[in-house]
């Protein structure tokens, strides 16, 4: 019985002659087929689950929020691009609207970067990644944008955006440390800002408990107007039917070489602030035009 891994062609060694005259070992057999069963890809996304989620969410998008886009053609149909937007509502309602809108209108997938805190929550983290969420690690963003030329969406305000109380609505928070600009520079892709109206009123926070936030380790633990109206359970999942308006701004490109080790921090902060100012101005403009929270 031959021991494992001993290839039979080596018996030729015993057939005499000098070592150098021995025949080369037979070429290695090639790669074997990949016996995958499920449809979960390398990012943890499952196309069947995404299809189901789209079907379930579509009525919400169409008839509850009645999302209306302005300038969606500015989002490229191919090539990588980083989408940034303002972020609001206790459980952010803007992310699914943006993702669903682009995926149905443009027919190309969007990868949503979010706090990796999601990953540590049982069930939620798994579902979140199956429908398309990716932890916001610069390496993940680079691979998506540069190597795979995908659309990636990120909210630079992070959890500070949705954690606002109602009387701070539509006031953009700090754009982190400008990491999103650095990622776009390194990946050599444009940034496309989107101004979103409606999310703030869909689940406004009236009170935040600092003690509970500390206790649970969550960024904020809110009491929302929805809680007051619908009770603690229904109020957590039911949004107000605010009218969503989304305006896509002109893509911003940077005249720097991609793939650099690092980029000047001052330049990054400058660009991030410029984007924030432009987004804030657009939101104010849109608010001036808005006649009603519910009808737009």
């Amino acid at each position, binding site marked *: *019985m031959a*021991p*494992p*891994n*001993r*290839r039979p062609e*080596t018996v030729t*060694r*015993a057939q*005499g*002659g*000098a*070592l150098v005259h*021995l025949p080369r*070992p037979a070429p*290695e*057999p*090639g*790669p*074997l*087929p*990949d*016996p*995958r*069963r*499920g449809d*979960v890809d*390398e*990012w*943890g996304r499952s196309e069947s689950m995404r299809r189901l989620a789209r079907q379930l969410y579509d009525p919400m998008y169409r008839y509850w929020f009645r999302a209306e886009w302005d300038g969606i053609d500015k989002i490229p149909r191919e090539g990588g691009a980083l989408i940034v937007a303002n972020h609001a509502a206790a459980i952010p309602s803007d992310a699914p609207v943006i993702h669903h809108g682009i995926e149905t209108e443009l027919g190309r997938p969007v990868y949503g970067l979010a706090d*990796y*805190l999601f*990953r*540590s*929550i*049982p*069930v*939620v*983290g*798994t579902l979140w990644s199956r429908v398309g969420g*990716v*932890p916001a*690690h*610069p*390496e*993940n963003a680079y*691979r998506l944008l540069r190597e795979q030329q995908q659309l990636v969406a990120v909210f630079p305000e992070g959890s500070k955006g949705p954690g606002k109380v109602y009387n701070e609505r539509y006031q953009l928070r700090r754009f982190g440390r400008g990491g999103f600009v650095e990622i776009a520079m390194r990946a050599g892709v444009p940034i496309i800002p989107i101004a979103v109206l409606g999310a703030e009123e869909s689940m406004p926070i009236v009170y935040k408990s600092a003690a509970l936030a500390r206790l649970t380790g969550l960024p904020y633990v809110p009491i929302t107007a929805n809680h007051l109206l619908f009770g603690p359970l229904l109020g957590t999942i039911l949004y107000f039917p605010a009218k969503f308006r989304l305006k896509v701004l002109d893509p911003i490109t940077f005249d720097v070489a991609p793939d650099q080790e690092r980029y000047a921090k001052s330049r990054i902060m400058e660009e991030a602030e410029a984007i924030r100012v432009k987004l804030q101005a657009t939101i104010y403009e849109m608010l001036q035009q808005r006649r009603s929270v519910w009808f737009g």
Partner: protein
Amino acid sequence: MGRRVLLTGLATFWGGRVALALEDDPQVEVIVGLDTKDPNLELKRTEYVRADQSYSILARIVQAAQIDTILHTALVVDSTRMSGRSMHEANVIGTMNLLAAAGAADSPVRHIVVKSSTLVYGSGYQDPYWFREEMSRTSAPSTRVERSLLEVEDYLRDFAEDNPHVRVTLLRYANVLGTDIVTPISRALSMPVTPSILGFDPLLQFVEEDDVVRSLLYVVRNEIPGIYNVAGDGRVPWSEVCAIAGRRRVAMPPLLTNLAAALPGRLGLVDLPPELLNLLRYGRGVDNRRLKRAGFEYRYTTAGAVESFTHAHRLRSTVGQVRPEYKYQQDVEAFFRHSPAVRRDTERLS
């Protein structure tokens, strides 16, 4: 002149297999295998030396046999095999002595290959989906095996810096599955039900045991220096791994998982070390493209490795152990290798 190779951990799973593969390579002239236990595979021309990993004996062997290549396959990456203290002894002290011997004045060693593990990247929720070789872990190591492997890599880095004339290759292997190897994961997949953590379905990456041996030989033959991740293509959710293996999952609670995991350990069913529990929660992915760019071709994908294990396991559970047991007998081996009565290939060739 052929290569003169020193192999550590000859009696371990990998040592034996690598020795077998090296014996088939005509460019390898001498194979010296080191271990404290007898080899468990039948070897033709490997010289077995029973020795612990103390510095003085290593330095003498390296000098006496004029070793030019060291293959360090003895690192322990399965923490269920021994206590933390003996693992530290085997990994850290063993490597330290080996590198000291290899770096001694007028040492003939020109190439060192170390078989490490992707355990050095850890497994946490802040991790990127793909670790590249130059990236470091996102949280401090919390398990013994991870700490000891990181220490080993530190020593190796220092050695490479101090000895620029020696090629140093560090291979970090993903979790291995295959026809023969027994790991905590393969044991978990051999039980009627397989543990998982409620609400988590991590993406895992495996490498097949055949690809492990092939990659080690590849870097030796082609004299490739550097750090390389070795892992099959693709990441597969744990639920799908269990489905390929035909196993039903039973969920452990997501809180106090360590306590819950201690129960099957106590019952002697399956040992779930802390690094495996992290893996079952967050998974791990490494970028395997650097070794591919160096020319290595994997035969198995991640799912392919799981399937290879599954097929072998089905056969085993039907007909039992397939391979005959081998018992090392010193007198017999010495006779075949050294007795003047035996006509050997080398004599006929000369």
